[in-house]
């Protein structure tokens, strides 16, 4: 738990809905250390997802900064942020969000395809496929490579989503209620996977409203009323 890999400072985010303004985040500051497993908790609608999106450069804050490895995420160009999303962060969503037309392996490889030109892809295809197959194998999907998402159970889909998030060997894995749509047993399974990954050195930031799920993390921070209540554990 040495260096801080991801540092959010004074994040503000509000949504304008007609006449009223909804201030979701009102100055959130949070540091994540390399190799750490942080759980962000809070009631539904308190802004957990919003915060996670900002941390993963998926959305832009109204005010405040996010620094990755010391460089300002929102200081650079769109292209730089696209690159960060592709290379540095891996996202896992509550609703899996797999592409229905693609099979398990192809879904997993999507970040690699996005990150490579046609020539680069063709050059490294075998490598990347091997890596993705390994990953899926470790997640227990070795024999489902050619299946389409609609042929898989919820837990399997979420594992594919995790594999996809890991395909480009991201430095930070961001998971937004990864168990939110699963029954308790399957949720446990997925948490096992995340814990396992973290034990192997993967930095994980996870959002949940379930204390039992959050218990797997090293550190739990609580978001309420737009602020972090217990930043240092």
């Amino acid at each position, binding site marked *: 738990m040495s260096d801080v890999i991801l540092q959010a400072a004074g994040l503000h985010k509000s949504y304008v809905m007609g006449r009223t303004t909804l201030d979701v985040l009102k100055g959130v500051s949070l540091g994540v250390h390399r190799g750490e497993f942080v759980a962000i908790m809070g009631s539904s609608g308190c802004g957990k*997802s919003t915060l996670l999106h900002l941390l993963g450069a998926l959305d832009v804050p109204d005010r405040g900064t996010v620094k990755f490895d010391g460089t300002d995420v929102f200081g650079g160009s769109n292209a730089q942020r696209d690159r*960060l999303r*592709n290379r540095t962060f891996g*996202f896992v969503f509550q609703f899996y*969000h797999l592409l*229905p*037309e693609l099979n398990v392996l192809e879904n997993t490889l999507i970040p690699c395809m996005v990150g490579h030109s*046609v020539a*680069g892809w063709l050059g490294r295809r075998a490598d990347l496929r091997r890596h993705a197959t390994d990953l899926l194998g470790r997640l227990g999907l070795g024999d489902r490579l050619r299946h389409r998402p609609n042929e898989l159970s919820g837990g399997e889909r979420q594992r594919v989503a995790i594999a996809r998030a890991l395909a480009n060997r991201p430095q930070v894995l961001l998971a937004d209620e990864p168990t939110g749509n699963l029954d308790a047993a399957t949720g446990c399974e997925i948490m096992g996977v995340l814990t396992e990954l973290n034990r192997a050195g993967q930095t994980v930031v996870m959002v949940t409203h379930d204390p039992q799920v959050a218990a797997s993390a090293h550190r739990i921070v609580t978001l309420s009323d737009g602020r972090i209540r217990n930043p240092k554990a």
Partner: protein
Amino acid sequence: MYKLFLCLRYLRRRRIAFFSVAAVCLCTAMVLIVVSVMNGFLQMVRDRSRGMLGDLIMENQSLQGFPYYQDFIDQVKHDPELGQRIYEATPLIISYGVIRFPSDQITKPAQVLGIRFDETCRVNDFGKGLFYEKYYPGTTTLKPQKEPRLGRDEKGQYVLPTYLEAARSRWEKSAPPDEIAKAWRSKAVPYAGPGAYLPLPDAYAPSGVDTTGLEPVAPAYDGPELPGAIIGTDMVAKRLPTGEYEREYYSRGSTITLTFVPFTDTGKPLESGTGMPSKVFRYADDCRTGVYDIDSMSVYVDFDLLQDVLNMKEDKYTGEQGGGVIPARTTQVQIKLNAGYDPRATRDLLQKQWDEFFMSRIHSVRTPDLLRRVEIRTWEEKQAKYIAAVEKEKYLVTTLFGVISVVAVFLVVCIFYMIVQQKTRDIGIIKSVGATALGVAQIFLAYGAAVGIVGGGIGTIIAVYFVKYINEFQHGLERLGRVFHMDLQVWNPEVYAFDRIPNQVQVWDAVIIYAVAVLMAVAGSVIAAVKAARIWPVEALRYE
């Protein structure tokens, strides 16, 4: 990489995309077919015009014609500059009359043309359209002739006089085998060669009667010598749906009567004897220019003979200030140039010569305006109005169909918009893993291009084959129509003046239309691409 991958995958998996492919395909095919047919039509009009007229035409648009044509032809043929350019020049009389077929007592209006047979064959494509001259080369003439009648040989087969049989075997030696097989065998009389000939009374046997072993009958030239006439094919033969002609009613050498309308050089009807002059001819051959209006009206006879009948030969007149000579007249002179000489430039040279020429003669005739009004025009200028009309029609129809095709673009716009709408979440996903806005836009632009390439490609292929077999389609339709007692004939030769629908696709037309189809499909995908590029991943991924 993902752009190509997703683009291909969507093309394969989204069934709705096939509707846009189909729309692009149909529009491409439609425009290419229309352009090809119109282009072909225009080309045919031009070719036929030139084929009928030679390169340059001298005329004064009157029925009486103009004098001194022969002097002028001789002069320019011996001119050092023009003589080199001119391949052949021939006078031609165009007049009107009535043709009567004595065998069935049918009369029809006719355009009677007086030609010098050999010269005319050199000046324009007239000779290429002759029927009997093709199968019996060297046997067609406008000179006085008898009727060739069939005899019967010892095997019981009909035979023609040796001269004609020899000509036919000459043709068969040089003709490709499939041509020989195709050569029309007359239904009326079971003679083995093309065309229709009448058997001699002794040789005649009704069909079904076995003639083998009967006494042979020698074929013969029969009847009085009468001048020959070449008749427009559509007057003497029945056109079959296959495009071939059946010569059932009129046999070669049978007689026809022409009635003429002569004028004096001053344009007054000639008061000669009683009524209008009439003359009997023999049907020597029939000629097809391919222009229905011409082939259903024209009768070609010998120039000198017609000149005589129409009172256009050199003559004398007497008047109050004494008399004078009326020089021989023609209504037209057609000129063919040697290859490589520009008709316009030659026309100018010729016009200069003519201006000097007619000024030197203008005082020796009593009708100077006949000379003054002579104009020399190129075939293009003479047919300019007609050609321009067809050209306009071509642009009009092409534009019209082009505009209609824009519908396909809107279809692409709608379908792509729908796809983006349906795929918002997927687009959000690939953006969340780092796809750029431009990259996402490119997926849909490439998708549009793919729709254009596939749709346009299929459309082009369809059009090429459709146009290639367009006449067969038309005949099929016609036949189908007959089954249901409806008129489904799309191309009526009497309306379009050509008996075949043009069936050539120009490579450049195809290339340009294909390129435009691809561009239009890409253009149609721009809106969807922009929409996709603007999708904000967080929004797209918020809900399931």
